[in-house]
């Protein structure tokens, strides 16, 4: 099949990005950020609290970690549910022992189905982000904007009601977005989103409803990516987190505050044979006085302040 003439035309070939969502800049050229009390590395731990429907539609693509056998896939349904029943409570113990302040990105439907869990997390005072409706309700190119608008509105309403929190952060299921997602998020009061993983620091993101903040929540350092996608061992997971921290810590010496963003799934790292390696990595990090453990909104606020300082 031959190609049309337009295949050799490049309408976006110009200075900067090939879209208008954010300005092009190199991390090294930006204003340095100082975290509160002169801390060097902000540790943002996010726990993904997810519900995977047994009657998964998988349209237009299945969620990462979703059902994969013929119906009913009890194997994967219960493996994921394990995180909400058991794994997350192992996490909480570890966080409390180490004095960490995680955030929790929760599917709205999970808050509705398991009010105990929503209340328990909200009761801790840790920040809760919206993780969309459920893992089988993706945002994607081609999704009807009115449908997506309602999907976001309903998710935020349910989660705000269930938790009593303003809920101003967003993590899309599978980090997937449509071309309208940023506008719709801004319209419904979202101040930052975590899906764009193109940076190691927050940055300003343009929408037609005003500016929001991109808070990159690393995929490369995510437990699901390392353990399930790459099939690395638990020990290797811990080593990679430790290596990442040591690197950022050193870099912050000359380049200002850095952000280590770890996304955790209680259905993976909450297993008895894995939790110890998570604890080992976190113990290594918090042994440094120069670490600031904080929620995403606090980190965003400190970053914003540094932009105008």
């Amino acid at each position, binding site marked *: 099949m031959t*190609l049309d003439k337009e*295949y050799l035309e490049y309408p976006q070939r110009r200075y900067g990005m090939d879209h208008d969502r954010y300005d092009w800049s*190199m991390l*090294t050229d930006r204003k340095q950020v100082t975290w509160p009390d002169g801390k060097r590395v902000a540790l943002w731990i996010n726990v993904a609290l997810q519900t995977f429907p047994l009657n998964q539609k998988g349209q237009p693509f299945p969620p990462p970690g979703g059902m994969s056998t013929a119906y009913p896939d009890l194997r994967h349904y219960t493996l994921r549910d394990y995180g909400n029943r058991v794994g997350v409570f192992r996490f909480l113990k570890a966080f409390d022992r180490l004095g960490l302040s995680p955030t929790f990105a929760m599917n709205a439907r999970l808050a509705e189905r398991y009010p105990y869990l929503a209340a328990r997390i909200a009761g801790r005072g840790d920040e809760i982000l919206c993780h969309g409706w459920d893992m089988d309700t993706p945002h994607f190119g081609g999704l009807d904007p009115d449908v997506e608008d309602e999907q976001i509105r309903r998710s935020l309403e349910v989660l705000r009601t269930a938790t009593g929190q303003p809920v101003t952060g967003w993590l899309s299921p599978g980090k997937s977005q449509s071309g309208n997602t940023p506008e719709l998020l801004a319209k419904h009061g979202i101040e930052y989103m975590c899906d764009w993983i193109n940076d190691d620091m927050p940055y300003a993101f343009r929408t037609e409803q005003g500016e929001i903040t991109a808070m990159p929540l690393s995929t490369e350092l995510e437990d699901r990516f390392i353990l399930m996608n790459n099939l690395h061992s638990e020990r*290797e997971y811990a080593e990679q987190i430790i*290596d990442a921290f040591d690197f950022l810590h050193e870099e912050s010496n000359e380049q200002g505050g850095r952000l*280590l963003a770890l996304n955790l799934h209680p259905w993976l790292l909450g297993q008895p044979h894995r939790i110890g390696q998570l604890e080992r990595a976190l113990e290594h990090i918090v042994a440094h006085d120069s670490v600031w453990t904080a929620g995403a909104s606090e980190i965003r606020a400190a970053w914003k302040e540094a932009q105008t300082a």
Partner: protein
Amino acid sequence: MQEDPGLYDYWPYEDRPKIRWPNDARVAFWVAPNIEFYELDPAVNPHRAAWPKPVPDVHGYATRDYGNRVGHMRLMRVLDKYGVRGSISLSTALCEHHPEIIELCLERDWEFFSHGIYNTRYTYGMDEAQERAMIEDAVATIKQHTGQQCAGYLAPALTHTEITMDLFAEAGGIYTCDLFHDDQPTPVRVRSGNKFISVPYSLEMNDTIVYVVNKIEPRRYGEMIKANFDRLYAEGADSGVVMCVPLHAYQVGHPHRLKAFEEALEYITGHSDVWVTTGREIAEYYIEHCYDEAVLDIQRRGAVT
């Protein structure tokens, strides 16, 4: 379609004419950072989708963009520390999009070679005039923005036609990185009869293949690079060889990966009889000192293709 690409003849590794690198180095070592631009919404090629998800594929796009925003500067710092000049496999539209990165490479006297215009524009389906236009556009863009005459080619996203090498040689190129058949440079047959060669680029040492396709742990990648070097260094005592590490700052430039790579680089550059060089320098040296003898030897040993 043909059974064999027709680009080179079978030429066994044993008993070849001895390659003598400058200063009798055993290994010509080069590092090839890919500096790429992927489009968010590229024109559609019916032979290959640019993204696995419907546009916007936020995750795929952002993964690549990380290299330009964060990774290149980290990698430059490491390469500077060990005196390595990069040979850049360049999406040439990056000259327009991100001239600041080009400037940093020019300051370091790095080499620029063509990796197409965008890594989301594939050669599949192009007729001869279209592919020539794409190649000439890339060569002209490099000349305009860097002053360099483009010597090398790595096809965009490793997409080719049967005449890719012919067209690149006719555009003034002298070497290709697209062939993985050898650990030494080899002559490559092009229709113009120009002296044109393959410079080993190595997919096996390519960070994207290692991390993404083979899902290798960062520390093991460092060990693999050292093992690759050790064996080539030993063999290089008999005849010069080439070792290349192709990189992508959006992969190796992550905080959990760069240190293990740096340790491997420190190890390699800690050897005195290693020629730390660039793709162009290897190609020019080989064409001047080794090419004619290689062609004679290949003819003498009886080509089977």
